[in-house]
């Protein structure tokens, strides 16, 4: 993981922050879980994280996140599930 990786993540976050002012409200929630996924895979590819439970949560996000444009209720359900899953991991 190098400085350029961080720059890309920051660019993504700042662009998302600007976009969220004009874009549909639910895109904001989508961008936040997307950034979770981006960060996780960046950390994992650099051997900076190795938590299988968290890996499964991210897999779940990656598998189901696009439901946000098709079925808002299902997307909200996914966010609730992710929070429940994370609750078990946080000390």
């Amino acid at each position, binding site marked *: 993981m190098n400085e350029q990786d961080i*720059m*890309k993540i920051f*660019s*993504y976050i700042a*662009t998302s922050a600007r*976009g969220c002012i004009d874009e549909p409200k639910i895109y904001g929630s989508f961008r936040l879980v997307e950034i979770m996924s981006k960060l996780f895979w960046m950390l994992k590819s650099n051997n900076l994280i190795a938590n299988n439970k968290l890996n499964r949560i991210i897999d779940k996000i990656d598998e189901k996140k696009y439901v946000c*444009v098709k079925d808002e209720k299902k997307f909200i359900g996914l966010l609730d599930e992710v929070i429940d899953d994370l609750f078990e991991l946080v000390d």
Partner: protein
Amino acid sequence: MNSIIDIIIKRRSIRHYKQEDIPKDLLLELVKAATWAPSASNMQAWYFIIVNDKKVLNKISSFSPGLLGNPPNVIVICSDRNKAFNKGGKLGRDELCLMDISMAAENLMLLATEKGLGTCAIKSFNGKAIQKILELPDYVSSELIISIGYPMKEVKPPKRKTVEEVSFENRWGERI
């Protein structure tokens, strides 16, 4: 051979791509299809920037939150607002050239579908950043990014409203 309606129904917004480059000739065919879209007063106030340089693509991606699934190529569709104004006045500059670009994008995406490619039309990007990355002149604006690649998997179609739900006959409220 697929009929046009089959292709229209088959097209999906793809957000998972195989890392397989698309031959430039094929990308140029897609642009050709786009240029045969109708345009107001035949203004054709559009430009198509094929992006196949990974470095440029990565930079575009950093400033385009809507660009998902790591596509191997994108085509950035741009408007020439000066040309649109000269030919179509204020209406041409502010509205018609955008409608024209939308029709061009659909042509491009339908041909891509017929060729076995996946696409997604993206508006979630930072126009100023794209302007700088692609070195666009002031009078040219990036309007849509079309991600293009071979789809990683088949995507189920989302629910569609029925024709009856969205159509009236002769006047508002008169159901078909």
